[in-house]
């Protein structure tokens, strides 16, 4: 084995992370080669020097301070919980779709219910009411299209005015 190759692999050999064949090969090379052996000793010396950075122990009260921080967090968990509720909502696209479906259904149901109401208000003039409902489809772009809230209000107002007269 060439010294150059041995020296390249020495750091990994030191950690025992080479294949067992390679470990053995370098081990036997080191017994015969003073230069590689010197390099290896230097590497080991560096590793030994690192022991001059001894372990420290946590300061007294480490756990107590940690517990205080965590109970502080527990008290302020309302906002994260609120965020969790929002996270339960589906993706923005699904939310928008859901909202649109809700809106369209609402308008449709509103129209159906209101048309029932028209019949109720105009029981005395059934023929006029029928004609009015059939015309509703072409009056969608009126300022107050039939079936809209505005239209309903106007009709209610005129109905009560008539009653007063």
């Amino acid at each position: 084995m060439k010294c150059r190759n041995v020296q390249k692999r020495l750091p990994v050999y030191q950690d025992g992370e080479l294949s067992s064949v390679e470990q053995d090969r370098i081990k036997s090379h080191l017994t015969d080669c003073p230069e590689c052996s010197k390099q290896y000793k230097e590497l080991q010396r560096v590793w030994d020097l690192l022991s001059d950075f001894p372990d420290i122990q946590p300061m007294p009260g480490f756990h107590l301070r940690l517990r205080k921080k965590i109970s502080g967090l527990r008290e302020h968990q309302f906002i994260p919980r609120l965020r969790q509720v929002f996270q339960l909502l589906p993706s923005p696209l699904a939310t928008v779709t859901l909202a649109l479906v809700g809106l369209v259904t609402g308008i449709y149901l509103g129209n159906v219910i209101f048309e029932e109401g028209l019949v109720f208000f105009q029981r005395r003039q059934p023929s006029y009411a029928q004609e009015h409902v059939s015309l509703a489809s072409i009056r969608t772009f009126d300022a107050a299209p039939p079936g809209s809230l505005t239209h309903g209000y106007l009709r209610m107002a005129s109905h009560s005015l008539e009653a007063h007269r």
Partner: protein
Amino acid sequence: MNNNLPDEGTLSEDLMARVAKGDNYAFEALVKRHQGAVLNLIHRFIGYRARAEDLAQEVFIRVWQAAGRYKRTAKFSTWIYRITANLCLNELKSARRRKLLFLSSSGGKGENREDRYFEPGADREPSPEDLLLTAERNRQVSAALRSLPANQRLAVILKRYDDLSYREIAQILGCSVSAVDSLLVRAKRNLRKNLIPYEK
């Protein structure tokens, strides 16, 4: 809630399952078991005791917060080392940002220069432990470690002081085993360059 004092031999993974159910005793046992490893990894990485203690607490706060989401796919120790390593790297980034606020852009060259840590708490009074650490050789070792680029430094600390395998280090750093191999080859070369001259 299963609030009984856990046995010494209870696996950390089992303790974590109890923490998820709100067991404070299990959390306390987990902290006691891993606080030394977490604190020392951070301390060796950043070199400042008071800040290391704050960050170690941050690690355990994250453990507590993530208890419900924890999955036993990896060893608990690997998982908590990973949280710790990420926190160290974030600390490095924010320290660099702080440094950029104070210094005009330096003409620094070299691929690794950006990875080097701006000493946090350099503007702070040193603690008694910091003073002890300034004993010449300790200071040199600490400085030599901190002169390493972040990933090399993490790999060296996890190998030298925690005696982890390359495979575990790879899992913690989120890289391949061969990447750990080359990180350690380069780190050892750099350390030799920085530490051996002091010997003579």
